């Protein structure tokens, strides 16, 4: 059986907001819907990402209420993207290399989904062959 690719395991449901959306609205979305992040999209192109971390570090810790800022003000950019056809080891390597937990999944440059650490974590036992012999580390790319 062929190894799964990013496009098969990522979430096709994600929330995006325009850069002008107020942070208080973005924060409500994240808090009320249990979403880890929101993409900031301008004319169909993902230009940034707002995560829980962004809200804590760039809004609350700096004394803002969220009323006076927009998503465009605080978004982290550039956004990290990965093509839907990429392999999961490649995605994990990218996350590890950049220490980020959320990747925008694109198809020919168009945003189609969200791949988070959660999606990969679910598959980790299969990816490393949990029934393999103890002590054998599975290197990304070997799956």
């Amino acid at each position: 059986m062929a190894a799964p690719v990013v496009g098969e395991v990522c979430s096709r449901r994600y929330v995006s907001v325009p850069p002008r959306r107020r942070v208080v609205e973005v924060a409500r979305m994240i808090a009320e819907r249990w979403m880890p992040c929101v993409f900031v999209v301008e004319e169909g192109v993902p230009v940034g990402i707002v995560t829980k971390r962004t809200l804590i570090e760039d809004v609350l810790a700096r004394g803002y209420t969220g009323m006076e800022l927009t998503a465009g003000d605080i978004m982290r950019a550039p956004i990290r993207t990965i093509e839907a056809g990429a392999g999961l080891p490649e995605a994990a390597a990218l996350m590890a290399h950049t220490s980020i937990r959320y990747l925008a999944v694109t198809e020919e440059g168009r945003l189609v989904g969200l791949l988070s650490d959660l999606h990969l974590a679910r598959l980790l036992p299969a990816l490393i062959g949990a029934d393999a012999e103890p002590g054998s580390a599975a290197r990304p790319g070997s799956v």
Partner: protein
Amino acid sequence: MDRVLVGEARAAALERCPGLPALMIDSEAEITCEMIATGVFSPLTGFLTKEENESVLQTGRLPDGTPWPIPLSLAPAGRRNAEVLRGLREGDEVALIDRRGECVALQRVNQVYTLDREARARSLFGTGEPAAHPGVESMYRRFGSLALAGPLELLRRPGWGAFEAYRMTPRETYEYLYDRQGYSRVAGFVTGANPPHMGHEHMHRVALELVDAVLLLPQVEMERPEYIEATHRILALETLRDVYYPPNRVVLAALRTNYLFAGPREAVLHALIMRNYGCTHALIGRDHAGVGDRYDMYAGQRIFTEYEPGELGIEPLFFSEIFLCTPRRATAPERTCPHDARYRLMISGTGIREVLRRGYLPPKEICRPEVGHVALRGVVPKGVDAAGRGVYPVGQTIHSLFPHYEVAVRLGGHLRPGVVPWQALTDRDLEAALLDSRTHADEVYAGVFAEFAAAVETDRRLAERWRVEAREILADQRHAETEKLPERAPEGEIEAGWVEPSPGRRAGEGSMRTIRAIDFTTADYPRVASDDPALEALALMAAGERDYAMVVEQGDIVGVVEQAALVFAYGRGELRPDTRVAEVARDLPWIDPEATFDDVVRFMAALGVFQVCIENRVLDDFMLLRAIWTAQLATAREFREYEPPVGSV
């Protein structure tokens, strides 16, 4: 081209004059004769025939294909002139005399034909209504029904009065620019009714970067009553040249052609005139030779695509609408500036003129004070125009210069609750907008700089003392607030312990700075031991719907293992089936049980962690954000009251 007779040829011609049939021409035709004879309208040698007229109107070219956009016709009005014209035959010579009876030029008769004024007006101006277009009005007033075509020779150059000092023929500009100054590339600029402003200056300076010199050709044959007098416009240009431009690189020569307001076609005519004066480049702005909003703003630039490159003998340089961008403190066209209209002062010649008419100097950012001063003295009382309208509405003046005023309380300021329509604006609003621009236009960029300097400069000696003092006071105040925290949360050793969930402890009122974070913690989290397999922790996380599990030893939280850490370990190739929790776990910071939400937020941000431990209970980033943004805190009252716009998700 030089068709000005001198010496013996002129004497012989003057002798012939009294015996020739004579046509009395007006001063405008007299000037046109001079322009033809001195080569300003080259390659024309005289007024056009009927066939040439039609070809020009239909194709923008003479019958032989030479580009020429506007027909030059001699159709002097008056009964006596009509009688003379009817008696002329091909090959005759006719004397053109001025109102004093003096012979101005001799014209050889190639053709006398009936001029279809209405067709000409419709083709040239898009309307046959005199009241609808100044060019049509002028034509009906000046032209009779019979026109005369043929080459002419000039006997006497009319006096230029106040503009004599600025009179230069194409031959003279060539000699000055190329022989005397040794230039090789010169840009021409034809300017019309309004005093020079920063938009013009922007174009001139761009051109001065590209070429050796700029030739300013102000049209001085203006007849609309609302304009600044030509004498003062030319003085204003002279001031600009002398005070703000490099010596000898900007040349001023009056252009005595009639302003037709023929929009795009006139833009091409002006380019050809500039070429004839020796220019290699023509500066063409937006709405060149337009009147009101009759023509599309950029039609005067698009028309040049109808001619092959090089065909006109001059290279046009196009400019879009130029405004003053206050954050950049520079003039800029739309395509180079990211800032919106709230930060702009628009550079409208009409708006500047109307501000002058009301007795104010326009904002210094869009019109030099030296120029404004001269232009103010040349303001012509407006009275009533052909349509019976009085003064230009003050709201339109504000709209043309201060577009932010209708939507924002001040330049770069907050938006008004609603848009104020320009029709509702009064003289008081103009005063307010002018005062606002004087006070704030040059503060925007300075303010941005001051904020950055105050925030990032480590050596404060350059900063204003009052700003430093204000910041010191602010810092003292913040420090004082922090100092109060130990009173609420006395320092001491924190006992690690187990606290059962107590839902009833949720506070209903309070603020980020008063509500204790512990009231929002949980003891309901996945627990693992250091020796457990990491993959087992993953399974517990999934079951507990958390992205972390607490590492618990003897009942105490000693660390945390995060789902992301396992993924990262896999990404680095370090995750094995037998990887233990201890290999991927990290320490979990704890915080005092009296800590407030504000403390926890700063703590998490400073340490870059997603969870904190408070008395063996856990507060994670999701719980924190939910507590704040789902209106559980009293400080969230404003969030509760804030209703996002419909369809915001």
